Each structure stands twice: as structure tokens, then as C-alpha cells.
């Protein structure tokens, strides 16, 4: 374990100035909010000489486009994790929104086939599906006193099945194709050479960051995550805030669904099925805690960037699936270990 290796200088009794300086630097690095960015940078620099192609324009572009859908849904997840919840239903939302939106816009017998309203209504349908499912999750958690993990787990199972069933009812094949060009551009198109998805993702990042760091709503979320009872006593509308955190997660998942559906040019019920654990892993690698009360949008950006960079580099290295899985697992363990270390250092600093 690299954790133990890093710990050795901390525990040394001999206080040689150099060791002490090194220790302080190490501690500062570990405590840094942007650690994951440094690690990504170092990792990139290590991989660069081995596979120079990783720094090529097309590879960097691939990293970016792979990153965007994952980033948007991970940002939504960050909100829920901050209030000590979890949202496993996001992949269900991605699948369901994809087929519902596609069923409206498709040129093979869509509800608004050929109409000028098809795209705006389709986009609204995506967002409404996400918002409603998020709202339902939040309602169950706050009003019905149900644990978030189970509510959203059953949501995932239900929506996964419902999306397939919905597709069967609307299409002879297992997906809904024939989407309008203008919609497909959201996922795959460019504007002045820049992917349109990038604009969407940046907008989501900016809004989410603003919500969390600049508004009362953001403060409420952190307060609830740290101690819901204390927050309630202090007059925070706990239930309402948690409900909205889930709505945000649902809407973000719906936006991701739009990006993925656009890129594939079809609505499909198996969309995003395999990225659930990646989403949670990315947020946690960034430094957001599953215990609630701790998390930032910029951390999530770092976590997603790191995960996608690893994926891309391993692909270029021609690694087998085995290495991809094992490295991902190792990275999560490392992130968790670093967080544990961080808390130990902080506890010593204050005690």
C-alpha cells in the first residue's frame, strides 16, 4: 500500500530539518483540495513518455468528450452525497429519459414527428423525466422515511425494466432511432470547433458551483450533511433541501442522457447501464464523502478527469479489461486511504 509508504516519514522520531520539511510538504499536499488534479498531472506526465499519443489532439479530445456525460451526472450525484444520501437511480433516469425523449422526436412515428416543436418538447421531456424521478426519490426519502440507497436502488431496477418495456411499445427494434439532426448535435456536434456538449457541461458546472458555494441553499445542504438534527433545530428546511438535491441529481442525469443519446443518435434503454459505479467512484475520488457534509463541484471535476484519463491511457496502452478494472479499484482504495490519512492529520493538528 502506498499509504503506508507515505506514512513512514510522519512517524519518524528523528527530526532532521530536511525530513521535517519534506513531511510538511507532504502533509500540505495531502491536505490540498486540489490533490486529485496534481495526481492527474503527475500520472499524465508519467504516461506521456510511454504512450506519446496520449498528448495528441485527438486523444485529448477523446478524453474531453468521454468526460462530459460522466461529469454532468457526477455533479448531480455530488449534491446528493453532500446531504449524506446516494442516488443509484441515475442510470435508470439516463435510460428512461433517453427513450421517452426519443419517442417524441423520432422520425419513425414519434409523437411530434416533423413538427417544429419536436426538439424543444423533446428536450423538456428529458428534463421533466429526470426532475420527476428525482422528486419522487426525494419525496420517498423525506416524507416516507425510506433509506435513499433502497429507494434509488428500486428506482434503478424499475426504470431499467420500464425503459425496455417502453421501447418495445414504441419501436420494433431494441432502440429508437431517427432523431432530428439538430438534437443529435447536442451530443456529437461542434460549434466553432468546440463540442456543443462542452458548453452544456460548463454551464452545469458553473450553475452547480454557484448553487453550492454562493447560495443559502448550498449552505443548507452542507449543514444537513454534517448534522441533520442540528440543521433542523437551526431552522433549515431539511426535507425541502434534500428533496431538491435529489431533483438536481435527476435533472443532471437527464442532461447526461441527452448528451449520450445525441452522440449515439438513438434512444436506447441500455444507455449508461454500466457507468453507475464509475459515477460514484469519480465523485468519491474527487474527495466528496459518502458520510455527507463534504464535497465540492471542482473536486468532482478532478475525480472525473482522473478516472477518464486513466481509462484513456489504459486503452492506449492496449491494456486488457482486467487491468482497467483492477486499476479503477486500486484508485478508489487509494482515494479512500488518502481521505482517512487526511482526517488523521487534521485530527492531530486540532488535538
Amino acid at each position, binding site marked *: 500500500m502506498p499509504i503506508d509508504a507515505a506514512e513512514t516519514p510522519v512517524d519518524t522520531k528523528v527530526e532532521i530539518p530536511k525530513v521535517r520539511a519534506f513531511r510538511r510538504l507532504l502533509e500540505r499536499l495531502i491536505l490540498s483540495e486540489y490533490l486529485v488534479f496534481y495526481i492527474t498531472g503527475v500520472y499524465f506526465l508519467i504516461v506521456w513518455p510511454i504512450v506519446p499519443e496520449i498528448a495528441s489532439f485527438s486523444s485529448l479530445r477523446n478524453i474531453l468528450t468521454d468526460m462530459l456525460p460522466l461529469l454532468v451526472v457526477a455533479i448531480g450525484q455530488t449534491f446528493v452525497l453532500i446531504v449524506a444520501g*446516494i442516488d443509484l437511480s441515475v442510470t435508470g433516469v439516463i435510460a428512461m429519459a433517453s427513450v421517452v425523449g426519443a419517442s417524441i422526436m423520432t422520425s419513425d412515428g414519434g409523437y411530434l414527428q416533423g413538427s417544429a416543436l419536436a426538439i424543444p418538447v423533446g428536450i423538456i421531456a428529458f428534463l421533466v423525466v429526470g426532475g420527476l424521478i428525482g422528486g419522487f426519490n426525494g419525496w*420517498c426519502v423525506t416524507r*416516507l*422515511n*425510506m*433509506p435513499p*440507497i*433502497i*429507494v434509488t*436502488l*428500486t*428506482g*434503478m*431496477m*424499475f426504470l*431499467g*425494466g*420500464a425503459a*425496455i*418495456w417502453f421501447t*418495445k411499445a414504441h419501436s420494433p427494434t431494441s432502440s429508437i432511432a431517427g432523431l432530428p439532426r439538430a438534437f443529435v448535435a447536442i451530443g456529437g456536434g461542434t460549434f466553432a470547433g468546440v463540442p456543443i456538449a462542452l458548453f452544456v457541461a460548463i454551464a452545469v458546472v458553473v450553475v452547480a458551483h454557484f448553487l453550492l458555494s454562493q447560495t443559502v441553499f448550498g449552505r443548507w445542504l452542507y449543514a444537513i450533511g454534517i448534522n441533520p438534527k442540528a440543521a433542523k433545530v437551526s431552522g433549515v428546511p431539511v426535507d425541502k433541501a434534500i428533496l431538491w438535491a435529489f431533483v438536481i441529481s435527476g435533472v443532471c442525469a437527464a442532461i447526461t442522457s441527452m448528451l449520450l443519446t445525441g452522440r449515439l443518435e438513438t434512444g436506447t434503454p441500455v444507455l449508461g447501464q454500466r457507468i453507475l*459505479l464509475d459515477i*460514484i*467512484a469519480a465523485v*468519491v475520488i474527487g474527495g466528496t464523502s*459518502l*458520510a455527507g457534509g463534504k464535497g465540492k463541484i471542482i473536486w468532482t471535476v478532478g475525480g472525473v478527469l482522473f478516472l477518464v484519463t486513466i481509462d484513456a491511457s489504459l486503452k492506449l496502452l492496449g491494456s*486488457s*479489461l*482486467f*487491468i*482497467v*478494472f*483492477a*486499476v*479503477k*479499484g*486500486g484508485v*478508489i*482504495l487509494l482515494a*479512500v*486511504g488518502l*481521505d*482517512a490519512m487526511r*482526517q488523521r492529520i487534521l485530527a492531530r493538528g486540532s488535538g
Partner: protein
Amino acid sequence: MQVGENRTTLLLLNAAPWVAFLAVVVVFGVLSDRFLTIQNFMNILTQSSHIAIMAIGITFVLLTAGIDLSVGAIMYVAVAVLALFLGGIPVVIAFPLVGLIGVALGAMNGYFVIKLRGQHPFIVTLATLFILRGAAIFLTDTRMVFVEESVMSLGRTSYFGVPWAIWVFAVVFVIAWIVLRETPFGRQIYAVGQDPTAAAKAGINVPRILFSVYCICGFLAAVGGLVSIAQVAAASSTFGFQIEFPVIAAAVLGGTSLFGGRGGVVGTVFGAVLIQTVQSGLVMTNATPYIYPLVTAVIIFLAVLIDGLRTSILDTLGRRKIRVEEIA
């Protein structure tokens, strides 16, 4: 205020799982004349046995307020090792070896959970899920693996008219039940789940208990893998993929709390069998396969909803300790 009314509601809510089970049996019994037969009941038990066995394992972990997402990956590793390396070895030797692998992998989970205290087991076992799935893919090279005829024949064997899988299921259940109800170790598991700090103060070695439950869970995941592979004979690279979700669902459906200290293996077995009963009923009534996950999800949702309502009614009944019998 309306304590009496609340008590009646509570009684109703307590009986709800049984009522639901009866309702399921009656409805499908009416819809299909093949449903209410001994043969079908045996089939249901056989098909649910691997999920039930793994769910019993995860019940131990849930009772300590932990969770284990890696059970599907452990199951795959265990079966891959059996198929690839233990081919010529008689099952009496091979199976215990596979069980040992399960224990070892569970021990790895337990080690990390203890070492990284303060981090939720959810994320720790998520990491080991990735690592173990990677290891299994490395072993199998993403190819289909097949087990020996001697293993497959077990899947077809019956003793006293009862299939082998059900015997394994029954033995695991009885041992788990005795361990949880009748031994100090079992009571310590509940104590740790209810309040780890208090348990530590009472002299319980909390890390040891945590370590043990993950070992048990790993072992039963491997056993679940064996029971499953004996029935299906071959494992593709998606063997056990995301099986953690139905496994956790079975335990939760049976009334085991995710927050520790509440629940038991009787409920878990009930949950696993109920899920399979519904699926079997849907098959017999020729329902479209796409509806299976929908129905299963709704049932689990309702079970947890009832549990939530029960908890809030208990809260309004005041601070007095009222012992509500678990589904057990």
C-alpha cells in the same frame, strides 16, 4: 394522541409482509394451475437458493451497519478458480478450497474496512468489486468457463426427493440462524450494529466482529457461486455481475435494516424466496419478461416503505422501548 389507532396500524404493518406473500401465492395459484404444486415450490426454492445463501451472508454484514458490494465479484472469482484450476480434483476437496478462497477474499474486505475506519464499507467494497472482477477476468481471459461433470451432476442430484441446492441452502440457513440467535458472537454482531461505541465500551472487540462478518459474507458468496454454477454449468464474463443488488434487496425485503442491529436470516430467506416466487408466478402466467424487474422493484419498494412507516409510528408511540417482533 391516537395511540390506540397507531397500535392497530402497527399490527397491520407488521403482518403486511406475510399478507403480501399469501396474496402473491393466492393470485398466482388462481391464475395458473401449475403454480400451487410441490414441484413448483421445489423449483422456486432451488432457483432462489444461491441468492438466498448470499443474502444470508450479506445479512451478517448489514447487521453491523456495513454493506458488501463485492459478493458478485467473489462469486465469479470462486467459480473461475473452480473451473480453471480445480478441474480434476474431486468435489469433496475442491469445494472446501473454493470456500477458503471466499473466506480469504472476504478477509481482504474486512481488512480494508477495519483499516479505513471512518470510510463507508460501501466505497471500500466498491473498490474490491472492481479489483476482484478484474482478477476474475484476468483468470478467465473474458472467455466462458465450464465446470466438470461431477459438479454439474450435483445440480441434478436429489436426496430424499429434495434437490442438492436446497439442502445446501437449508444447512447454511440453520447454521446462520443458530449463530445469530444462540451464540455470544451473534449477539455481539447485533450489539456492534446498534452502537459500535457502546459495544466497544462493553468490551466487545469491534474490529474482530467486523472482520468476521466480512469473512462469513465472502465465504457464503463463494458457496452461492458453487450452488449457482452447479445449476448452470458455465459462467460467462457477466457471471454474478450486479447480483449484489438482488442479494441486498432480498435481505432488506426480509426486514434487515441497512443501519445495523435489526433483522435476521429468517426474514432474509423469506425475502429471497418471495422475489423468486413472484418471478416464477410471472413466468407461469406468461407475463412478458420485461415486467419482472418492474414487479420485483415494486415489491421491495413497498416492503421498505412499510418498514419506514413502522419506524415512524414507533417514534410517535414515544420513547418507551416497545419490542416489535421482527419478521423473524
